[in-house]
């Protein structure tokens, strides 16, 4: 059977029309679409909320990081400005801090009765206590002028002595149980009077084992003091030869120290170390005589000064 185009048209139209959907199917599909849309909207809202929370958290950390970075930059700029201003004033920006620390350490050491001051503390104290050094210099200068500082007489007169080792060498020894000298870093390189120095005790001067001999290298001062790395004092003396000196006893008076009579007493020392015009000046003879450490036959006077035996 052959159908015409018109019949086909009608048949197809009717067939499509009969395919549906029914009203029930339309409502069902619409309800499903609405439900899915609602679920999808809810899900999207949850996702958006989660993303917002993450974004807020990230922003919070970004703000914290920015503030921290700003603080670091400000601190750096402040330190730089402080450094620059201190440099312009010619001082160490942290000298005050070091000074305080060094003073504290020095006070602790003094309170503990520990005679050894570490080299670091000594150096720090030296660097920090310029005023103290100046004060010491003033005392030294006053001594040089003949004014003995108060409180230093006993030390010099009771604990130290200068003995002649012969051949132009002289030793500064300590007597009795005098404690090891406190190394004052502020005295490094300075010239001081013997009267403010106390050295390690000498068990037996007669044996000569603990005698310290210090050679004087300079020619402009009677003596000098420096602190070695162990915090011990080194004293450099420039004393006239016994024969020429009017203040150091000769070998005739050396009975109490095994033939090496110490020269003790403020007056003797001061006379030796006096920087004033009245005291005996340091002569080239004396410098030459003290030049060799422990070697009386060496008249050069340029040996390794200050090495403690």
């Amino acid at each position, binding site marked *: 059977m052959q159908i015409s185009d018109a019949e086909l048209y009608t048949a197809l139209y*009717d067939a*499509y029309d009969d395919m549906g959907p029914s009203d029930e199917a339309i409502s069902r599909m619409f309800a499903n679409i609405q439900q899915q849309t609602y679920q999808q909207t809810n899900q999207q809202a949850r996702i958006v909320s989660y993303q917002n929370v993450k974004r807020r958290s990230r922003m919070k950390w970004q703000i914290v990081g920015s503030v921290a970075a700003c603080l670091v930059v400000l601190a750096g700029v402040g330190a730089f400005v402080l450094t620059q201003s201190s440099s312009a004033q010619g001082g160490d920006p942290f000298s005050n801090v070091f000074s305080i620390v060094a003073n504290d350490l020095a006070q602790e050491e003094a309170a503990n009765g520990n005679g050894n001051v570490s080299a670091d503390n000594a150096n720090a104290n030296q660097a920090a206590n310029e005023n103290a050094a100046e004060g010491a210099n003033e005392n030294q200068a006053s001594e040089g002028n003949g004014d003995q500082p108060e409180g230093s007489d006993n030390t010099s007169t009771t604990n130290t002595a200068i003995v002649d080792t012969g051949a132009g060498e002289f030793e500064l020894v300590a007597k009795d149980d005098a404690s090891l000298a406190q190394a004052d870093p502020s005295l490094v390189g300075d010239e001081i009077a013997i009267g403010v120095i106390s050295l390690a005790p000498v068990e037996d001067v007669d044996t000569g084992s603990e005698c310290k001999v210090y050679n004087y290298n300079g020619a402009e001062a009677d003596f000098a003091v420096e602190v070695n790395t162990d915090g011990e004092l080194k004293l450099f003396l420039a004393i006239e030869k016994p024969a020429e000196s009017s203040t150091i006893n000769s070998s005739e008076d050396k009975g109490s120290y095994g033939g090496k009579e110490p020269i003790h007493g403020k007056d003797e020392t001061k006379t030796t170390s006096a920087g004033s015009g009245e005291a005996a000046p340091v002569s080239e003879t004396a410098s030459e005589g003290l030049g060799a450490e422990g070697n009386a036959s060496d008249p050069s006077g340029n040996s390794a000064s200050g090495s403690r035996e």
Partner: protein
Amino acid sequence: MPGTSRQSRLHPDAGGSGSEYLTRVYRRHVKMVYRLCYSYLGNASDAEDATQSVFMKLMRSPRRFDDVEHEKAWLIVCAQNLCRDVLKSSYHAKTSVEGEQSVFDKAISDSGLQEKSDVEEAILRLPEKYKTCVYMYYYEGYRSHEIAQVLNVPDSTVRGYLSEARRLLKEYLGSGGR
């Protein structure tokens, strides 16, 4: 009129909220979409699912149509592509063995509510590439050049599809349908 300018602007009928607009679109075109899907998929349940998917796609990515024809053309193309995807999917190939009815369709057939006519069977037997052209030409009343514009194919191709589909349908119906 399909094939008019595709500029994105509000449809005159797109007043009110988005959901109201989508509701109007749904009520206006749901039967067309369902019939097209049914002609592709051959059963009511798959056609309903495909129809829902088409409108869900419109809701997920709302777009603005120039006019009703533009809106209609977009839904036709979307339904056609979606049905082709369903037919190509492995799930559909596994579940719909040729000659087998789904449980839903079988229940409907058993209850006598709906029974496929010879013409409907003939439509379902048509190749996929003819189905949209036949539906648009014989039911929606589009001309061949309008169909060509909607489907974005040459007019001669549409005319060739229609001629071949007509020949096949006459053949199916003249030989008793099956």
